[in-house]
Every structure is written in C-alpha cells, then in structure tokens.
C-alpha cells in the first residue's frame, strides 16, 4: 500500500542501521568547534564536536545525542559524509540536503553525494519530521560559526 511504502521509505534499513549503530558517536576532547542543538518540541538533542584543520578541512568530527531514529541517523550520516571536506564543500552539501528533505529541487551535488543523501529523502513526505532530520546539520553549522546553540522548531 502507498502509505506503507512511504513509511518503509522513511524507516529504510540504512536509516535504522545508522540510528542503531551511529558512526562517529562520542566526544572529541581536542575539538576546535563545539555546537549544541536542541529541539524543544520533541526533546531531540545533539552535540557536535569537530576539529577544523589549518587547511580549512574538517579533520575529525563526532557527535553525541539522544532522540528519534531520524535525528540520530541524520547526525550519523552527516558526520560520515563531511569528514575530510572543506567548509565550503560542507555548506554546499548542507544546501543540497535541506532541499532534499523539504522535497525541493536538489542541485549542485555530485551523483555519489546525492545517492548517499537520498536515503533521508523519505522525510519529505513527513513535514512534521523534517526538523528531526535537519537538527544535526544546523548544529554543525552553528558549531562552525562559533558554537551558538542551534534550535529547530
């Protein structure tokens, strides 16, 4: 059935695997940038630690968090994808991701990036859940910008 399809798409195996076995989970003692995100509506929390190298690349990144499968999987996938990239590349990736989860046209992503992000695309059929998917990304961005707390409501 149609509804079941959209649920299966939302909670596909890759998402559940990321949420059950998050990559890059934990703290970084020598982080250069730290950001904390909180969604006051549902209580999702995420804390991002990252090390920005002299070459403007993200040398390492970790996250801690508590929340729904979507928010945790999104954080895990994000950390997996942005490590090693420059700040500019990360911002481009984030732009594409935000378009994707809102069901808008996605441009400027490499086919490989697009394919990896596509697993989160099912969120676009659940407008109430988009903020769960974007929390980690907004938190990462606020960490890069100086670590003010991010919020998605």
């Amino acid at each position, binding site marked *: 059935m149609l*509804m*079941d399809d959209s*649920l299966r798409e939302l909670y596909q195996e890759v998402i559940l695997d990321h949420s*059950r076995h998050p990559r890059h989970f934990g703290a970084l003692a020598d982080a250069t940038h730290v950001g904390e995100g909180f969604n006051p*509506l549902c209580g*999702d929390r995420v804390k991002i630690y990252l090390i920005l190298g002299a070459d403007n690349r993200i040398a390492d990144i970790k996250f801690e968090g508590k*929340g*729904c*499968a979507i928010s945790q999987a999104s954080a895990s996938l994000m950390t997996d994808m942005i490590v090693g990239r420059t700040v500019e590349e990360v911002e481009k990736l984030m732009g594409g991701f935000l378009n994707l989860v809102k069901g808008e046209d996605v441009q400027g992503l490499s086919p490989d990036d697009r394919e990896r992000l596509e697993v989160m695309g099912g969120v676009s059929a659940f407008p109430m*859940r988009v903020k769960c998917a974007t929390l980690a990304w907004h938190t990462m961005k606020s960490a890069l910008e100086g670590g003010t707390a991010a919020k998605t409501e």
Partner: protein
Amino acid sequence: MNAPAKLPMFDAAAARADFEILSREVYGKPLVYLDSAASAQKPRQVLDAMRDFATSEYANVHRGVHYLSATATERYEAARESVRRFLNAAHADEIVFTKGGTEAINLVSYSFLAPRIQPGDEIVLSVMEHHSNIVPWHFLRERQGAVLRWVDVRDDGSLDIEALDDAIGAKTKLVAITHMSNVLGTVTPLKEIVARAHAKGVPVLADGCQGAVHGRVDVRDLDIDFYAITGHKLYGPTGIGALYAKRAHLKAMRPFNGGGEMIREVTRDVVTYADPPARFEAGTPPIIESVGLAAALDYLSSMDRTAIAAHEHDLLSYAREQLRELNWVRVIGDAPGKGAILSFEADGMHAHDLATILDREGVAVRAGHHCAQVLMERFNVASTTRASFALYNTREDVDVFVAALHKARGILG
C-alpha cells in the same frame, strides 16, 4: 479481543454520532482519536449552539443598550451560571472567564499571590505539574525570590500525601497541584490536600484541566480556594476557560489585564475597578465561545457522568491489560484510581517514530514531553507516547491502537 465483554453502561456508539469528525479518515484509514487529553473533539451540540447564537443573538456584551447586546449579555452570564453549576460553586460571581486554564493560573499568580510574596516564601507543587502550573510560579521565583518546593511522586505515579504535608511549612504561601496528571493519569486526593493545607492556613490551587473532564467536581465540598478549567478539553471550544475562586479571594485580588469592562470609573488622574468577576475580564471576552462552553457542559451534564467515567476506565483497563502482555512496552503511571491516560515507552522506538507510524494507521496519539519536563526528568525519560481516552472512544479503538503498535514494532523493532 479476549477480555470478557462487559455490558455497556454507557452507549459510546451513540455518543460518537454526535462527533462528526470521528467518522472521517486519515491516510485512508478510519480515524482513531486517542489525543483527547491534548484537546477533545466537539459534539454538534456545541457547534450548533455557537452557530445559532452567532446567527441570531450576537453582539458585544455589557455595553450597548440595544436588543442584541442584551441577549448576548444574557447568554454570556448564563454561561457563567453553567460553569457555576458544573463546579457547584456557591456564587456565579466566583467564576472568572479566561482564555484557558493557563490564563486562569497566571491570573492567580499575578493577582493573588505576587503581592503576598516576600523573598524566601514558598510555593509547594508536585513534580507532575503541567508547565502551565509551573512557569507562573517560576515567574515569582525569578522576580520576587519565591522558593519552589517540589513534592515527588512514587514510582507508580501516585502522590505521597505525607510528603506533601511535610513540604507545607511556615513560609508556604500556596499549594499548586494538578487534580489529574496529563501524563500519568494520577488523580490527586484533592479534598485531603485542601484539608492538610488549610490546617496550616495555606490556600490551594488545583489545575483541573484534566480532572474536571473525567469526574464530577464540587468546589464547595473540596473547600478549594482556586480551581482552573479549560473549555477545549471539556468538549467545548478553544479560547475559553475559567477560574473558580472563593469570593473573598477575588475581592482581595488586584486587577490582571487593564482595559474596558474591568473599570468603574476612569479619569485623567485615577481609575477605580469593577467588582469581580468583571475586574478580571478586561476587553471583549470570548462571547461565542462562552455559549459553546455552556453547551459542552450541558452536553456532559445531560449524560450519566458516573457511567462515562466507568466507560473510560474500562477502556483504560482494556488497553492496560494488552500492553502488559508486551514485554517491550513500559507503562509510566499506574497509580490506583488513575484516569484514562496511558503513557508509555517502547524498547528501541522513540516516541516520535512510533507516533509517526501510528499516525499512518489513522491513530492519533501524543508524543513528546507533554509540557511536563520536570516529570520526564523524574522518570528519566526524554519523551513518552500517550494515548488518552474520552467518552467517544471504544474498545475497537484500543484494538486498532494495539495492532498499530505491533506494526510499528515490525518496522522499527
């Protein structure tokens, strides 16, 4: 399912026919509405009353000398009388209309308690309060140095009356407590609480937003000082609620909002205030909503409320029994005599993921902290899923709900 069917004491199927929204579908599935603790659906009697009033008798109240202003004022004051009767207050002027339960509690905080608070004075409240019965007291902590004394609940969610009694001391200026927890379903022994507090000369405010829905309230029998209700959980409209307060308290209270209708005389130099309840009803009140609220209370009173309570309790027990068989579900709140609210956690499933899947099965539940973060912390959970039952729910609703839980387990578990 397998539980022995009881003879129906209350005809929920007949009542359902009054609620047109319950026959709609969501995502192609029949709606199963288990979120009445957040807001109840409205029967056609309420909607008709509001429409009829607006199409034949409406104008502003207490102002004009014209015909419609008189009919509208009559209806508005008749609604006040309906609330008085519903709560069994002694006098209609002890009922102040507000925009909801939250405003009713804020009114007590601002107009009654704030002028009496010295730094170090205490307000006693339980950990199971809704934010609407916490934040107005935090204001007094922030602004005037009041101290909040928290009374814990037991692991089953019941209130420890002795702990509450111990918390009431020489500096206590108010006990603020829920009549029924919106998360745990716990019903507090209000009469006993009032007796203990009054023995120490302390007034009591009850948040009755849930309590007034599920059982009869008699403010005189309780001897309670303040009782707050909201219309939309009582099958009435949004935008209206009421505060019951003893006449002597209201007379001693300073105004809340300033504006029209709450004054006696305004000059360039001075202003004198109207007597209660008008003193606390500045501006044009929710007039159409007052008629809707009165219709809702009439609707409830036209039925056997003991039978409604028994029906809701049957749904609660029926659901509770089925969840007991699921070793991956943990119910939070099992206090004896609790109301028809079921909050739970499910292993490996966050409340929001679970609620999303239930939603696609047509089942509306609440997921989150339920505006009770202090309680969430007490039970060491970030969020729970909550199913709440109303007079129009049936055992079939519970069956669909439980089947949907199994489905969610299949997808997420």
